[in-house]
């Protein structure tokens, strides 16, 4: 990106106020503010804390799963509880941790990066956050109702999902509410990005984070209603005598899979595209050189989003679809490698002939590049129909999507937190601790998930609480890695909390190479209200 930014006044921070100027005219300064606030920074922070909490809840479930899988035999949980754990772990990580965390960043950053005072619909913004709380409560509570939490895998395939107890209905309701929250958030983001840019901030001058979110928000609006439709049909099949997915009544269980994955595949890009945006801002900053091929990055992101609508069948190669269907979905899926490759090459070309330094955010981005690419390659392996058939529903698939989601989505988020924390709080995190967090995560992540490729190739199915003896060794290795990985994340919480409480004062432009508006036009910490008068961008 080569945005030239010229403040309209000599005063570099025009449009910004000191936080104290406005402290009292925003309702009560006490705890009720968390319910009434319409400020994008407050809501952004609430989203981020919520997702951090959910990350640890989902992570604890993962550790229970890994504890059970440490050895063959049943040691800690009953098989149906194990199934509930894998199901709810996925739902919490997707809908409770990763998506809200991205929305949190969107809330904080989008108005600041485009020179707007707030989001377009501040009250709806408050509502989209608060909807998530009852949804989360429903998900937790479902563990304690008769029959337990949903245990059908997060894909909720009928007829298995027809069998569950009331926990499954609570899950359906929770997903409905979370979907409504996501749709509102997306409408807010699109409206903000299209209508509230500062004079001179053309679309092609927006920072990549804004671009990736614009595209992600459209994906969400397109697919969340599809998911809502699928789970509503599930609900009526369960309770109101319909037979959408019941062959005995003229329905088809396969239809659920088609509808679910028409949502599900764009969903996985919803989980990764904003991380692409974060990485696309951090790498140029620490390479001290503009992002390579800004325009092609925008087009590549848009092509990935569009292709995501025509590849859903690759999740279903084993349902017995005709050869023509398998070939179409295989070719379409392989095509995604092209724009994804372009992005990887662009990031590396950004580093090429730069002037690199390796602070924590940059380390996480480099980790992201290597590990996400590995996940991309295993994705390519899985796109090949015959190979997929031998690996479908095995641990290879588990390894694949954890490689794209943990170092992809989660490390993208971690990098973003370390990168913007000085801006959000006005204080610096502890660099040494940050590096420890990175290296411990990077090593233990690979100890956890690399052996799962071997387990999958050897034929170990996913979502089983117990396994044959030939899988014992790698499972033990994987479980050891998982515990190190899980506990390393506590360093992150410690670092964030001690940064907020007692970090060193950060500079307005903490990173030498940063060039988006929040770094060039606003002090650290950013005041409660920013850009009430829009800056002019040339």
């Amino acid at each position: 990106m080569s945005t030239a930014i010229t403040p309209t006044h000599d005063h570099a921070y025009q449009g910004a106020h000191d936080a104290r100027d406005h402290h009292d005219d925003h309702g009560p300064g006490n705890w009720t503010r968390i319910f009434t606030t319409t400020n994008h920074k407050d809501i952004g922070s609430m989203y981020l804390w919520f997702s951090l909490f959910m990350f640890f809840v989902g992570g604890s479930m993962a550790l229970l799963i890994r504890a059970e899988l440490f050895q063959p035999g049943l040691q800690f949980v009953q098989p149906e509880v194990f199934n509930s754990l894998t199901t709810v772990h996925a739902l919490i990580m997707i809908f409770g941790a990763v998506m809200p965390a991205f929305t949190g960043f969107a809330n904080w950053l989008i108005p600041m990066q485009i020179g707007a005072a707030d989001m377009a619909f501040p009250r709806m913004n408050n509502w989209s956050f608060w909807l998530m709380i009852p949804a989360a409560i429903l998900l937790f509570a479902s563990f304690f109702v008769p029959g337990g939490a949903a245990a059908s895998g997060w894909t909720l395939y009928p007829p298995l999902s027809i069998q569950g107890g009331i926990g499954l209905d609570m899950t359906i309701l929770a997903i409905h509410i979370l979907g409504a929250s996501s749709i509102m958030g997306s409408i807010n983001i699109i409206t903000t990005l299209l209508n509230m840019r500062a004079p001179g901030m053309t679309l092609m001058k927006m920072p990549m984070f804004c671009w990736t979110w614009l595209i992600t928000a459209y994906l969400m609006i397109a697919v969340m209603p599809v998911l809502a439709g699928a789970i509503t049909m599930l609900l009526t099949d369960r309770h109101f005598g319909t037979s959408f997915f019941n062959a005995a009544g003229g329905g088809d269980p396969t239809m659920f899979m088609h509808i679910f994955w028409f949502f599900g595949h764009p969903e996985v890009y919803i989980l990764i595209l904003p991380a692409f945006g974060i990485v696309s801002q951090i790498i140029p900053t620490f390479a001290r050189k503009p992002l390579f091929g800004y325009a092609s990055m925008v087009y590549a992101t848009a092509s990935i989003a569009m292709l995501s609508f025509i590849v859903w069948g690759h999740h279903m190669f084993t349902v017995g679809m005709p050869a023509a269907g398998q070939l179409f979905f295989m070719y379409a899926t392989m095509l995604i490698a092209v724009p994804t490759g372009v992005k990887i090459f662009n990031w590396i070309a950004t580093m090429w002939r730069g002037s690199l330094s390796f602070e924590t955010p940059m380390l996480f981005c480099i980790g992201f590049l290597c590990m996400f690419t590995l996940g991309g390659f295993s994705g390519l392996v899985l796109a090949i129909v015959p190979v997929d058939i031998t690996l479908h529903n095995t641990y290879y698939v588990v390894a694949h999507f954890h490689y794209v989601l943990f170092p992809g989505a989660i490390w993208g988020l971690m990098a973003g937190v370390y990168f913007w924390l000085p801006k959000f709080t006005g204080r610096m995190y502890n660099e040494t601790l940050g590096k420890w967090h990175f290296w411990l995560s990077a090593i233990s992540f690979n100890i956890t998930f690399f052996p799962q490729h071997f387990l999958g190739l050897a034929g170990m199915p996913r979502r089983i609480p117990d396994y044959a003896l030939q899988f014992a060794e790698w499972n033990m290795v994987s479980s050891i890695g998982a515990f190190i990985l899980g506990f390393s994340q506590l360093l992150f919480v410690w670092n964030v909390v001690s940064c907020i409480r007692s970090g060193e004062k950060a500079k307005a432009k903490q990173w030498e190479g940063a060039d988006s508006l929040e770094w060039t036009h606003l002090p650290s910490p950013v005041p409660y209200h920013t850009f009430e008068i829009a800056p002019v961008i040339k």
Partner: protein
Amino acid sequence: MQTMIRPALNILTNCALCRLKAAGVFAAMCACMVPNAWAGYDFNIPQPGTPISQQIYGLHMYILFVCAAIFVIVFSLMFYSIFKFRKSKGVKPDVNFHESTLIEIIWTIIPFIILIAMAIPATKTVLDMKDTSNPDITVKVTAYQWGWRYDYSAEDFGFYSNLSTPWSQIGQPGTPATEEKGKDYLLEVDNAMVVPVGKRVRLLVTSNDVIHGWYVPQLGVNQYGIPGFIKDVWFKANEVGTFKGQCSQICGKLHGYMPITVIVKSEADYAKWIEESKVKFGAKPLTASLPASASVEDANKKFTLAEAKEVGIKIYAANCIACHQTTGKGMPGAFPALSGSKVVQGPIDAQINVLLNGRPGTAMVSFARLSDSELAAVITYTKNSWDNNTGKIVQPADVKALRKA
């Protein structure tokens, strides 16, 4: 810890052997491929057993090597940048190097060409896999919660195939396994599917309740069984042997406990097996849990309490124990207790109806597939075990009467 050290020792021994034989890298590679050399540390697709799984194996290796090569090339550029263009070395950034249409076109086209090179052999294999024409034998595979049924319709028999690993090897949370885990732990079944070597075997896969996956990696087959629909796949085993697999699609509580065993026999042995099976499984199929003496169904059989309980406990162990538990106490909230249950202690007919029809909307499926005497025995067992002392005996005729109704 020993399990961790053993493979390491094996590697060292193998390496030493290689030097002795002066066979160099090639032998080292072979050593890695020899089964057992790495003990439990398998890290590739198991030895292919059919022409299709051979192709799959080859495709996977091909794509793996291409990806590995790309990874090495692309990331050596990145690591070169990391070491060469460091601020700490005083490097100044070349801020003008941020666009090049030519480079962008090149790195769009090259991956595209590589993808075509991958797609061509993959397409060929897909077409081979989908060609289910001209089968030599056809077997219908029906999945149910939680086991398999194989029907050899042309030969007029069929049988159920269930996990044969005892729960005493598996254990329960809080109660460790009382028996050592066997070699084929969780991969062993009572009645294996049997096919002839070198013949095209066509499977018609379906399901009785929820979606399951019939997955035997070495045969190159992984096919969902979908209730209400029949899907077909095929395989042709190269050699005589035993192939193991598992259900691949989550199907409820005991998803992890429904293994598959396929035994490939020579044509003569296969013919012999067919003849034996016609006797064993013909007419009315029985579960293997019954002793051989009980395998002939006798409608006029009159059980004594002791007889019925003796047969019943075996049927209970094969079909009921996973949910209702050895103690008959079930799992509160998920699976109701039989011990002290009003239904079990109540009238005979009500309980027979539950077993024949299941309880729609719960995990209690219909057990109508069991024979009249099997059902009579298991119901009698539940009525006279744990806290239940009804003294009632259910006779096969009672079941038969309600089955017809």
